[in-house]
């Protein structure tokens, strides 16, 4: 099957074109559907197939940048993007990111921080996933109760069932200046709250060395109280900008394999359109459930990688990659199947 192998001159490796396309496609589907960049999928996937780590990161950034253009365009069409909130998130997150990376640099002077960072990352992903599972079942119960009450009384209560108690409490904090986000359905919230939240997400991105989509989407939903689809669309703005910056800065350092990015982007762009379109057919809490499952498996993968670092047993590293790629492939498949089923119903109508 050598006909599918091409030589990638900048990275200096031979790679299977079909594999590049499939990696790109899956990253695109999940990126468009969850509003995440997908660096956590691309980097280990390329790395396991002989790409040097820094080339894997740089090439991943280039692909993420290209595919997020299409995803942003599609979500914009669906009215899923709150540009005002997105812009504030980018500006504030950058400050938090700088603080986070400074903390890492300071800690590196003291000793090995990789192990600590991975523990933190694993804990954060597990906690987020567990909370999302809990909320999924609580939210469903709340919705059922609300519907029953509405049916009994024959009136609509107007209560926002998707918003958590925590976000409602935050909205009652009235320290001026207040800011509204009409697209997200937020009438008035203290700007300091918004600044503080994105400072924390930026800090976590810098500290953990991740793009931030995984952190931003749950924060937008559970802390700020955005509808899930708007959280997904708005998070993609951050992905687009960090992707553009990452792509340029890594290319300047000679760490982007253009040919590989090009092939992956063809797959990723198609995938991003598929993933973004699927948002139309899957309800908000359905997206949350799939997101929760994905990040629990991502946490499992980080945990297995941690075991590899501690024991230096190769099979742990292989297992981490298998968990990650298995999750990516199966989640993409679930999303595509739902899209096909729901769109068939729509076409029949």
């Amino acid at each position, binding site marked *: 099957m050598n006909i599918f192998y091409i*030589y990638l*001159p*900048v990275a*200096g490796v031979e790679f299977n074109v079909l594999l590049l396309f499939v990696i790109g496609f899956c990253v695109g589907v999940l990126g468009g559907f969850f509003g995440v960049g997908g660096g956590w999928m691309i980097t280990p996937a390329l790395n396991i197939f002989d790409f040097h780590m820094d080339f894997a990161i740089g090439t991943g950034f*280039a692909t993420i*940048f*290209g595919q997020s*253009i*299409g*995803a942003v*365009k*599609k979500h*914009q*069409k*669906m*009215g*899923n*993007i709150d*540009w005002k909130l997105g812009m504030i998130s980018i500006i504030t997150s950058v400050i938090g990111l700088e603080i986070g990376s400074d903390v890492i640099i300071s800690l590196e002077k003291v000793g090995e921080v990789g192990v600590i960072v991975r523990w933190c990352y694993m804990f954060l992903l597990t906690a987020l996933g567990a909370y999302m599972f809990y909320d999924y079942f609580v*939210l469903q119960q709340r*919705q059922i109760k609300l519907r029953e009450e509405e049916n009994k009384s024959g009136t609509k209560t107007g209560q926002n*069932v*998707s918003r958590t108690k925590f976000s409602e409490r935050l909205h009652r904090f009235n320290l001026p200046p207040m800011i509204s986000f009409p697209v997200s*359905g937020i009438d008035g919230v203290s700007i300091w709250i918004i600044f503080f939240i994105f400072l924390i997400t930026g800090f976590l991105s810098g500290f953990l060395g991740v793009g931030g989509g995984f952190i931003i989407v749950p924060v937008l939903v559970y802390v700020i109280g955005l*509808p*899930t*689809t708007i959280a997904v669309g708005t998070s993609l703005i951050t992905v*687009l*900008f960090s992707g*553009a*910056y990452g*792509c*340029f*800065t890594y*290319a*300047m*350092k*000679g*760490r*982007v394999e*253009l*040919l590989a*990015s*090009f092939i992956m*982007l*063809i797959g990723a*762009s*198609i995938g*991003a*359109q598929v993933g*973004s*379109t699927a*948002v*139309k057919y899957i*309800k*908000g809490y359905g997206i949350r459930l799939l997101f929760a499952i994905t990040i629990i498996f991502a946490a499992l993968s980080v945990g297995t990688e941690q075991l590899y670092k501690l024991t230096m047993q190769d099979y742990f590293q292989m297992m981490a990659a298998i968990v990650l790629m298995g999750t990516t492939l199966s989640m993409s498949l679930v999303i595509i199947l739902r*899209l096909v089923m729901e*769109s068939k119903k*729509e*076409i029949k109508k």
Partner: protein
Amino acid sequence: MSMKKIITLCLLFFVLSIAYNNSFASSEVGGKQETSLNEKVGTKNLSGVNLWIVELYNNDRFMYAVVVVLVMAALGSIMAFGTDLVLKHFGINVSRISHSE
């Protein structure tokens, strides 16, 4: 926000990142030490587009970065447009949606 505004914002961000990166590039290239910025890739047995990419990579890293960003942006936009047309052809048309949970 229109697509034109997105592109304008991206360009602004891009220009800022160029300025930021150039400050690092100029300080590193002057040094004698081999860094990622002055690494070279062999051009033996290469031809066509591969040769052009590698020569650009070896000779002008800044232009290489510009080309990478532009190619990714252009391909991303073209693919998004094309895929949208294909999905429309299959009857999957995307418009403004209601945000129900």
